[in-house]
Protein backbone atom coordinates (compact mmCIF):
# COMPACT_ATOMS: atom_id res chain seq x y z
CA UNK A 1 0.00 0.00 0.00
CA UNK A 2 1.39 3.42 -0.87
CA UNK A 3 0.80 6.77 0.71
CA UNK A 4 1.87 10.00 -0.92
CA UNK A 5 3.50 12.76 1.08
CA UNK A 6 2.74 16.18 -0.34
CA UNK A 7 6.33 17.49 -0.31
CA UNK A 8 9.41 16.95 -2.44
CA UNK A 9 12.23 15.01 -0.78
CA UNK A 10 14.66 17.83 -1.63
CA UNK A 11 13.92 21.34 -2.98
CA UNK A 12 14.04 21.74 -6.75
CA UNK A 13 14.96 25.16 -8.11
CA UNK A 14 16.04 26.54 -11.47
CA UNK A 15 17.72 29.86 -12.21
CA UNK A 16 15.86 30.15 -15.53
CA UNK A 17 13.83 27.99 -17.94
CA UNK A 18 16.02 25.86 -20.21
CA UNK A 19 14.27 23.65 -22.74
CA UNK A 20 17.47 22.24 -24.20
CA UNK A 21 18.42 20.90 -20.81
CA UNK A 22 14.89 19.70 -20.07
CA UNK A 23 15.20 17.53 -23.18
CA UNK A 24 18.36 15.98 -21.71
CA UNK A 25 17.35 15.58 -18.06
CA UNK A 26 14.12 13.81 -19.05
CA UNK A 27 16.29 10.71 -19.43
CA UNK A 28 16.25 10.44 -15.63
CA UNK A 29 12.45 10.44 -15.77
CA UNK A 30 11.87 7.74 -18.40
CA UNK A 31 15.25 6.63 -19.72
CA UNK A 32 17.18 3.37 -19.28
CA UNK A 33 18.97 4.49 -16.11
CA UNK A 34 16.27 6.78 -14.79
CA UNK A 35 14.17 6.87 -11.67
CA UNK A 36 11.03 5.20 -13.05
CA UNK A 37 13.03 2.16 -14.04
CA UNK A 38 14.87 2.08 -10.73
CA UNK A 39 11.66 2.29 -8.75
CA UNK A 40 9.80 -0.40 -10.69
CA UNK A 41 12.83 -2.69 -10.70
CA UNK A 42 13.20 -2.66 -6.93
CA UNK A 43 9.48 -2.70 -6.11
CA UNK A 44 9.04 -5.68 -8.41
CA UNK A 45 12.09 -7.64 -7.27
CA UNK A 46 11.05 -7.42 -3.61
CA UNK A 47 8.42 -10.15 -4.03
CA UNK A 48 11.01 -12.83 -4.69
CA UNK A 49 13.63 -11.79 -2.12
CA UNK A 50 14.40 -14.48 0.46
CA UNK A 51 14.60 -12.44 3.66
CA UNK A 52 12.56 -9.76 5.43
CA UNK A 53 15.56 -7.46 5.37
CA UNK A 54 15.87 -7.69 1.60
CA UNK A 55 12.13 -7.17 1.12
CA UNK A 56 12.34 -4.10 3.39
CA UNK A 57 15.34 -2.57 1.65
CA UNK A 58 13.91 -3.02 -1.84
CA UNK A 59 10.55 -1.59 -0.72
CA UNK A 60 12.24 1.40 0.90
CA UNK A 61 14.69 2.24 -1.87
CA UNK A 62 11.99 1.58 -4.51
CA UNK A 63 9.74 4.06 -2.73
CA UNK A 64 12.54 6.62 -2.45
CA UNK A 65 13.11 6.34 -6.20
CA UNK A 66 9.48 7.36 -6.75
CA UNK A 67 10.30 10.52 -4.79
CA UNK A 68 13.31 11.06 -7.05
CA UNK A 69 11.13 10.62 -10.13
CA UNK A 70 8.91 13.35 -8.70
CA UNK A 71 11.93 15.62 -8.32
CA UNK A 72 12.89 15.12 -11.96
CA UNK A 73 9.29 15.87 -12.93
CA UNK A 74 9.42 19.06 -10.86
CA UNK A 75 12.71 19.98 -12.53
CA UNK A 76 11.31 19.53 -16.05
CA UNK A 77 8.12 21.37 -15.04
CA UNK A 78 10.21 24.38 -13.98
CA UNK A 79 12.62 24.19 -16.93
CA UNK A 80 9.72 24.44 -19.43
CA UNK A 81 7.78 27.04 -17.45
CA UNK A 82 6.37 29.72 -19.76
CA UNK A 83 7.84 28.21 -22.93
CA UNK A 84 6.02 28.83 -26.22
CA UNK A 85 5.66 26.28 -29.03
CA UNK A 86 8.40 28.19 -30.88
CA UNK A 87 10.70 27.86 -27.84
CA UNK A 88 10.22 24.10 -27.95
CA UNK A 89 11.03 24.00 -31.67
CA UNK A 90 14.15 26.11 -31.28
CA UNK A 91 15.36 23.81 -28.52
CA UNK A 92 14.95 20.84 -30.83
CA UNK A 93 12.06 19.58 -28.73
CA UNK A 94 9.16 20.38 -31.08
CA UNK A 95 8.08 16.76 -31.00
CA UNK A 96 7.62 16.99 -27.23
CA UNK A 97 5.29 19.98 -27.59
CA UNK A 98 3.40 18.33 -30.45
CA UNK A 99 2.69 15.21 -28.41
CA UNK A 100 2.56 16.54 -24.86
CA UNK A 101 2.34 20.37 -24.76
CA UNK A 102 3.69 21.19 -21.28
CA UNK A 103 2.87 17.68 -20.12
CA UNK A 104 5.51 15.19 -19.10
CA UNK A 105 6.14 11.76 -20.51
CA UNK A 106 8.57 8.91 -19.91
CA UNK A 107 11.22 8.98 -22.62
CA UNK A 108 14.99 9.10 -22.77
CA UNK A 109 16.99 12.12 -24.02
CA UNK A 110 16.37 11.01 -27.61
CA UNK A 111 12.62 10.62 -27.24
CA UNK A 112 12.69 6.81 -27.00
CA UNK A 113 9.83 5.78 -24.72
CA UNK A 114 10.39 3.88 -21.48
CA UNK A 115 10.50 0.14 -21.89
CA UNK A 116 10.20 -2.75 -19.45
CA UNK A 117 13.31 -4.27 -21.05
CA UNK A 118 15.31 -1.69 -19.08
CA UNK A 119 14.69 -3.75 -15.95
CA UNK A 120 14.90 -7.38 -14.96
CA UNK A 121 13.85 -9.78 -12.27
CA UNK A 122 15.49 -13.18 -12.40
CA UNK A 123 14.00 -14.26 -9.09
CA UNK A 124 17.54 -15.04 -7.96
CA UNK A 125 18.63 -12.71 -5.17
CA UNK A 126 22.31 -12.62 -6.19
CA UNK A 127 21.54 -11.81 -9.82
CA UNK A 128 18.87 -9.29 -8.85
CA UNK A 129 20.91 -7.45 -6.22
CA UNK A 130 23.90 -7.38 -8.58
CA UNK A 131 21.66 -5.82 -11.23
CA UNK A 132 20.51 -3.27 -8.66
CA UNK A 133 24.10 -2.32 -7.88
CA UNK A 134 24.84 -1.92 -11.58
CA UNK A 135 21.73 0.22 -11.96
CA UNK A 136 22.87 2.55 -9.19
CA UNK A 137 26.27 2.96 -10.83
CA UNK A 138 24.69 3.74 -14.21
CA UNK A 139 22.39 6.28 -12.61
CA UNK A 140 25.33 7.87 -10.80
CA UNK A 141 27.27 8.22 -14.04
CA UNK A 142 24.24 9.61 -15.89
CA UNK A 143 23.85 12.29 -13.21
CA UNK A 144 27.55 13.16 -13.69
CA UNK A 145 26.92 13.60 -17.42
CA UNK A 146 23.89 15.79 -16.76
CA UNK A 147 25.73 17.94 -14.21
CA UNK A 148 28.41 18.55 -16.84
CA UNK A 149 25.73 19.55 -19.36
CA UNK A 150 24.27 22.46 -17.32
CA UNK A 151 25.71 25.75 -16.01
CA UNK A 152 22.74 26.43 -13.73
CA UNK A 153 23.99 26.16 -10.11
CA UNK A 154 20.49 25.49 -8.74
CA UNK A 155 20.03 22.61 -11.15
CA UNK A 156 23.50 21.26 -10.32
CA UNK A 157 22.58 21.26 -6.59
CA UNK A 158 19.49 19.15 -7.22
CA UNK A 159 21.34 16.73 -9.49
CA UNK A 160 24.24 16.40 -7.04
CA UNK A 161 21.79 15.40 -4.31
CA UNK A 162 20.39 12.70 -6.59
CA UNK A 163 23.94 11.67 -7.57
CA UNK A 164 24.91 11.12 -3.93
CA UNK A 165 21.75 9.08 -3.30
CA UNK A 166 22.93 6.60 -5.95
CA UNK A 167 26.21 6.17 -4.07
CA UNK A 168 24.37 5.46 -0.81
CA UNK A 169 21.97 3.04 -2.51
CA UNK A 170 24.91 1.17 -4.03
CA UNK A 171 26.34 0.73 -0.53
CA UNK A 172 23.02 -0.54 0.84
CA UNK A 173 22.44 -3.01 -1.98
CA UNK A 174 26.04 -4.17 -1.55
CA UNK A 175 25.48 -4.75 2.16
CA UNK A 176 22.28 -6.63 1.36
CA UNK A 177 24.19 -8.78 -1.14
CA UNK A 178 26.75 -9.55 1.60
CA UNK A 179 23.92 -10.60 3.93
CA UNK A 180 21.93 -12.58 1.38
CA UNK A 181 25.00 -14.49 0.23
CA UNK A 182 25.79 -15.40 3.83
CA UNK A 183 22.15 -16.37 4.38
CA UNK A 184 22.07 -18.58 1.32
CA UNK A 185 25.34 -20.23 2.30
CA UNK A 186 23.89 -21.13 5.70
CA UNK A 187 20.66 -22.47 4.19
CA UNK A 188 22.46 -24.37 1.44
CA UNK A 189 20.69 -22.37 -1.20
CA UNK A 190 22.91 -23.85 -3.89
CA UNK A 191 20.11 -26.25 -4.63
CA UNK A 192 17.82 -23.27 -5.29
CA UNK A 193 15.31 -24.27 -2.59
CA UNK A 194 12.82 -21.89 -1.01
CA UNK A 195 14.10 -20.59 2.32
CA UNK A 196 12.42 -19.95 5.63
CA UNK A 197 13.68 -17.01 7.66
Amino acid at each position, binding site marked *: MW*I*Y*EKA*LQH*PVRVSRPDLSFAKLVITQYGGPDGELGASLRYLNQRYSMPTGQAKALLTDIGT*EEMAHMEMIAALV*YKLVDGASPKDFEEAGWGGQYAQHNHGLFWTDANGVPWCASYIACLGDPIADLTEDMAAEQKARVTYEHLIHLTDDPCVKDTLRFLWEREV*VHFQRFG*EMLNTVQEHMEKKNMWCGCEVEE
Partner: protein
Amino acid sequence: MNCEQQMRMLIEVQEMQFVALELNLYLDTHPCDKDAINDFNCAVEMLTKYKQAYEKEYGPLLNFGIGGYTDEAWQWVNSPWPWQL
Protein backbone atom coordinates in the same frame (compact mmCIF):
# COMPACT_ATOMS: atom_id res chain seq x y z
CA MET B 1 0.40 33.38 2.07
CA ASN B 2 3.98 34.02 3.15
CA CYS B 3 6.02 31.95 0.69
CA GLU B 4 9.30 32.47 2.52
CA GLN B 5 7.89 31.22 5.78
CA GLN B 6 6.37 28.20 4.05
CA MET B 7 9.72 27.32 2.47
CA ARG B 8 11.46 27.73 5.82
CA MET B 9 9.01 25.47 7.64
CA LEU B 10 9.03 22.97 4.77
CA ILE B 11 12.82 22.67 4.72
CA GLU B 12 12.78 21.78 8.44
CA VAL B 13 10.39 18.92 7.61
CA GLN B 14 12.49 17.85 4.60
CA GLU B 15 15.73 17.86 6.59
CA MET B 16 14.41 15.76 9.44
CA GLN B 17 12.50 13.47 7.07
CA PHE B 18 15.77 12.87 5.26
CA VAL B 19 17.58 11.99 8.50
CA ALA B 20 14.85 9.46 9.31
CA LEU B 21 14.95 8.00 5.81
CA GLU B 22 18.75 7.63 5.83
CA LEU B 23 18.64 5.88 9.21
CA ASN B 24 15.75 3.71 7.98
CA LEU B 25 17.83 2.45 5.03
CA TYR B 26 20.86 1.96 7.29
CA LEU B 27 18.77 -0.04 9.77
CA ASP B 28 17.45 -2.27 6.97
CA THR B 29 21.01 -3.59 6.60
CA HIS B 30 22.11 -3.02 10.21
CA PRO B 31 18.96 -3.88 12.19
CA CYS B 32 20.83 -4.33 15.49
CA ASP B 33 22.64 -0.97 15.58
CA LYS B 34 21.43 0.58 18.86
CA ASP B 35 22.86 4.03 18.11
CA ALA B 36 20.99 4.14 14.85
CA ILE B 37 17.77 3.04 16.56
CA ASN B 38 18.10 5.82 19.15
CA ASP B 39 18.90 8.47 16.55
CA PHE B 40 16.01 7.29 14.38
CA ASN B 41 13.60 7.73 17.29
CA CYS B 42 15.03 11.20 18.02
CA ALA B 43 14.54 12.14 14.39
CA VAL B 44 10.95 10.89 14.49
CA GLU B 45 10.25 13.02 17.57
CA MET B 46 11.57 16.16 15.86
CA LEU B 47 9.90 15.28 12.56
CA THR B 48 6.51 14.90 14.23
CA LYS B 49 6.82 18.39 15.75
CA TYR B 50 7.95 19.99 12.48
CA LYS B 51 5.19 18.27 10.51
CA GLN B 52 2.49 19.33 12.94
CA ALA B 53 3.70 22.94 12.80
CA TYR B 54 3.78 22.88 9.00
CA GLU B 55 0.38 21.23 8.61
CA LYS B 56 -1.25 23.69 11.00
CA GLU B 57 -0.30 26.54 8.64
CA TYR B 58 -0.32 24.92 5.21
CA GLY B 59 -2.63 21.95 5.31
CA PRO B 60 -2.16 18.18 5.36
CA LEU B 61 0.95 16.38 4.09
CA LEU B 62 -0.74 12.95 4.04
CA ASN B 63 -4.07 11.66 2.76
CA PHE B 64 -6.23 8.53 3.07
CA GLY B 65 -6.66 9.13 6.80
CA ILE B 66 -2.96 8.53 7.53
CA GLY B 67 -2.53 12.20 8.41
CA GLY B 68 -5.39 12.15 10.92
CA TYR B 69 -8.61 14.15 11.11
CA THR B 70 -9.54 16.82 8.62
CA ASP B 71 -10.85 20.28 9.38
CA GLU B 72 -14.19 21.54 8.15
CA ALA B 73 -12.50 22.51 4.88
CA TRP B 74 -11.01 19.68 2.75
CA GLN B 75 -7.51 21.13 2.42
CA TRP B 76 -5.89 18.20 0.65
CA VAL B 77 -6.96 19.67 -2.72
CA ASN B 78 -5.26 23.00 -2.07
CA SER B 79 -2.38 24.35 -4.12
CA PRO B 80 0.51 24.85 -4.41
CA TRP B 81 1.52 21.27 -5.03
CA PRO B 82 5.14 20.27 -4.42
CA TRP B 83 6.39 20.84 -7.98
CA GLN B 84 4.91 24.33 -7.94
CA LEU B 85 6.78 25.47 -4.82
